[in-house]
């Protein structure tokens, strides 16, 4: 089989001195689905950015179809037949599917865009590859899975022969994932080459032909997926044995800590995000909130943590009303919050690790006396956090923004869990975090639960919600559609039917979430 792509001895040093790729070699055959796997910060994204022309390699060579190339821009990568499906979709929500697809490569008739021809083309390609989407629909009307299809179509429309998919299943339900895999297999049969970035081992096993594993910027080898077990892959990725299964003792929930009652959230334009949600988080339990993103979870969490407002209902902590209180007040009542997006909400990127982990503790006597910082104490604490939470860094004084995603997240978790919380609101705590760090963060959450704290876990990772949560509520269109008291009895596909709104529990069953006698 011919080699579609070869990246040889790639080295990349970023301007902050981080050596993201030390020596990476990637060979992809024509017509295969090739998995690219590795922990966060291993250098996968960097490698793909180099391939797509978004970053320049410090040294190394790239061959496409046997020809040596120097890719300096995404336009050039597209010209070479390389297409990228980003994790965060690059689509214009107010434009139609057709308009998004032809953007920048519009078929022309004179000086006008040939809309008819464009529409026809879009329809044709969609049908041909089993990726049909109504060409006239607006992007904002599509589901996440459909948007992803548009992204793939966009790349195909631009003549891509090599498709890069960056963690495509992170945002999908199990049903949508299955559908995506069918489509990808179909594309493979049609002769396309696919690079599939993922650290979900079961997906790699199911879908891919070969796998390249990167650890700390160095290739750990190429394997036929059929020849290696999931355990082998994870050992190569992490460099040690990782227990994939989440191990925990059964929960012994006690009294109610956080009580959310009939909460309704409506914005100025009248859009209803949360519509009469009631539940109770008890001490010593991890309560999961499952649901496809955009079904009101973010607004609900914002309201609980003081970042947003509620329009009706009440939120209370141990019978003290906290609805509408300031973040400062809520934090002072020992509610910790691991935010959904660490870069926009979770850190001040250009400040040091130390300054970031004490950002919420500036009123502590230990660090501040008479308004003046106690630098020795602060730095010692920073060091303590770096050690306890295994943050990979040169010292606690470096800018937190210079660390890899997983290590930044550990810093965020360190700050929140060290704030002596009663309730921990963990919103996507392991999103985009590698296997090793995820395992570590999950353990910390279980430990907090075992110390009789209440953990509210919001995650779109189904394995995580099923493995980590003790009980579970499912949200769909701003409402709770299911309350599952014992998560162990739940399967992924059953959960999927609730998440997609296909199935709904009775009002009496849902009301049990409140634990009122």
């Amino acid at each position, binding site marked *: 089989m011919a080699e579609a792509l070869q990246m040889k001895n790639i080295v990349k040093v970023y301007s902050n001195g981080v050596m993201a790729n030390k020596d990476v070699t990637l060979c992809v055959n024509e017509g295969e689905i090739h998995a690219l796997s590795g922990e966060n910060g291993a250098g996968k994204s960097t490698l793909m950015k180099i391939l797509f022309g978004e970053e320049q390699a410090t040294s190394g060579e790239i061959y496409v179809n046997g020809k040596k190339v120097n890719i300096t821009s995404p336009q050039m990568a597209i010209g070479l037949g390389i297409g990228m499906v980003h994790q965060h979709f690059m689509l214009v929500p107010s434009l139609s599917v057709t308009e998004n697809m032809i953007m920048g490569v519009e078929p022309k008739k004179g000086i006008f865009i040939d809309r008819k021809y464009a529409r026809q083309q879009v329809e044709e390609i969609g049908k041909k590859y089993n990726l049909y989407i109504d060409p006239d629909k607006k992007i904002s009307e599509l589901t996440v899975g459909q948007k992803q299809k548009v992204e793939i179509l966009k790349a195909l429309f631009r003549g891509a022969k090599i498709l890069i998919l960056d963690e495509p299943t992170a945002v999908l339900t199990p049903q949508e994932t299955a559908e995506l895999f069918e489509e990808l297999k179909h594309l493979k049969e049609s002769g396309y080459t696919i690079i599939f970035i993922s650290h979900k081992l079961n997906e790699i096993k199911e879908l891919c032909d070969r796998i390249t594993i990167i650890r700390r910027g160095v290739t750990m080898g190429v394997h036929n997926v059929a020849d290696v077990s999931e355990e082998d892959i994870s050992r190569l990725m992490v460099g040690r044995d990782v227990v994939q299964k989440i191990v925990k003792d059964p929960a012994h929930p006690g009294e109610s800590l956080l009580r959310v009652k009939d909460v309704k959230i409506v914005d100025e334009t009248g859009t209803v995000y949360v519509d009469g949600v009631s539940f109770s988080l008890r001490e010593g339990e991890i309560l999961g909130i499952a649901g496809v993103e955009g079904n009101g979870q973010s607004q609900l969490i914002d309201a609980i943590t003081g*970042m947003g407002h509620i329009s009706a209902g009440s939120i209370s902590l141990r019978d003290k009303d906290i609805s509408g209180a300031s*973040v*400062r007040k809520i934090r002072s009542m020992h509610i910790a919050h691991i935010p959904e997006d660490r870069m926009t*909400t979770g850190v001040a990127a250009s400040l040091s690790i130390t300054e970031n982990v004490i*950002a919420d503790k500036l009123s502590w006597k230990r660090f501040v006396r008479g308004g003046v910082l106690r630098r020795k104490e602060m730095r010692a604490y920073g060091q303590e956090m770096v050690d306890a939470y295994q943050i990979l860094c040169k010292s606690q004084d470096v800018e937190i923004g210079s660390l890899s995603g997983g290590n930044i997240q550990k810093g965020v978790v360190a700050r929140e869990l060290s704030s002596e919380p009663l309730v921990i609101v963990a919103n996507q705590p392991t999103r985009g975090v590698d296997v090793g760090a995820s395992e570590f963060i999950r353990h910390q959450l279980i430990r907090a639960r075992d110390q009789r704290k209440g953990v509210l876990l919001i995650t779109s990772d189904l394995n995580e919600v099923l493995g980590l949560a003790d009980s579970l509520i499912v949200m769909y269109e701003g409402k709770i559609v299911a309350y599952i008291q014992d998560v162990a009895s739940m399967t992924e596909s059953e959960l999927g039917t609730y998440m997609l709104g296909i199935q709904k529990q009775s009002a009496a069953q849902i009301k049990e979430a409140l634990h009122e006698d």
Partner: protein
Amino acid sequence: MKINSQKKINLLVDCVKMLMIVAIACALVSLIVFAVSDDPLNAIYNFFVGPFTTLRRVGNIVEAASPLMFTALAVVIIFGAGQFSMIAEGSFFIGTAGAMVVAITIGMPAGLHPIVAILFGGILGSIVALIPALLKMKWNVSELVVSLMLNYVVQFFVIYLVTYFFREMESSSLCSVLFQDTATLTTILEGTRIHTGVLLGVAACIVMWFLMYRTSFGTSLRITGDNALFAKYAGLKVSGIMVAAQAIAGFLAGIGGGAELLGMYTRFKWTATPGYGWTGIVVALLARRNPLMVPLSAAFIAYMNVGADIMARNSDVGREMVDIIQGVMMLLIAADALLQGWRQRMIIKAAKAEEEVSV
């Protein structure tokens, strides 16, 4: 080890970059002078060497640096909190007016009089700076636009004050009556006009450095400036910090105005704002927003200004050239790409060397 090597690289590149900017600025001066002057060597000599030929001229540099330190500090604090208020100019000018009022109308003992006058100027500066800050907090009005417009309001208000209430009738040009003798600041170096306001400026720089890097307020301020959403999420009083930063900045600019007036003049003579607020931005950027670097960068800009004045007096080249140079310097400072290639090569080398050590 990596941190050390990287810090060193950054420091080295920054220093060389600043030296380069200075060198480019100087080269530019020479170039323009050669193009426009009939006697370029004389003009260049006056510009570069002129400021050091007499003690009085060296004094001029220090005197000119004094107001710049205050306005630059104000800019450092405001920008540090992530705000873009340009109020330093207005706060400085209202500060001069406040000091003038106290210096003319109230009788006080010599030691106390300038202190009260300058403090009053600072308070007025603070109040003026609060206007854009509060409007932003309350109604999310752009502090940039409000402060720019407010600067004009302040300017004409002060001129009105002088014209209608404090004007010296005997003089044909607009100026105030004489200050009381007790109000002026003492000169600290015989043969120059270097006054105690300079010491106040240096002290302010040290205090502000301490405030920003050694107190919890300063940490909150820097967190807010870096990522306001994160600051809110961490439970900091974000809008309070932003407003406080602008009030402090206004106070600094205001006492700067008071000190300048009472240190350098015996009556109020400005007919328009002197522009120290704008130059303060250049100084603040040149100091890389570090309060401890402010005195040095203020002195450098002052040196250029004094040089230009001397050149304008002794040759056929006008002093406006300095404004051109300042503009170019600002562009160069803002040009992050300058020397990045060199920095990148050094970082690669350091990263590789370290890799070998650790393997």
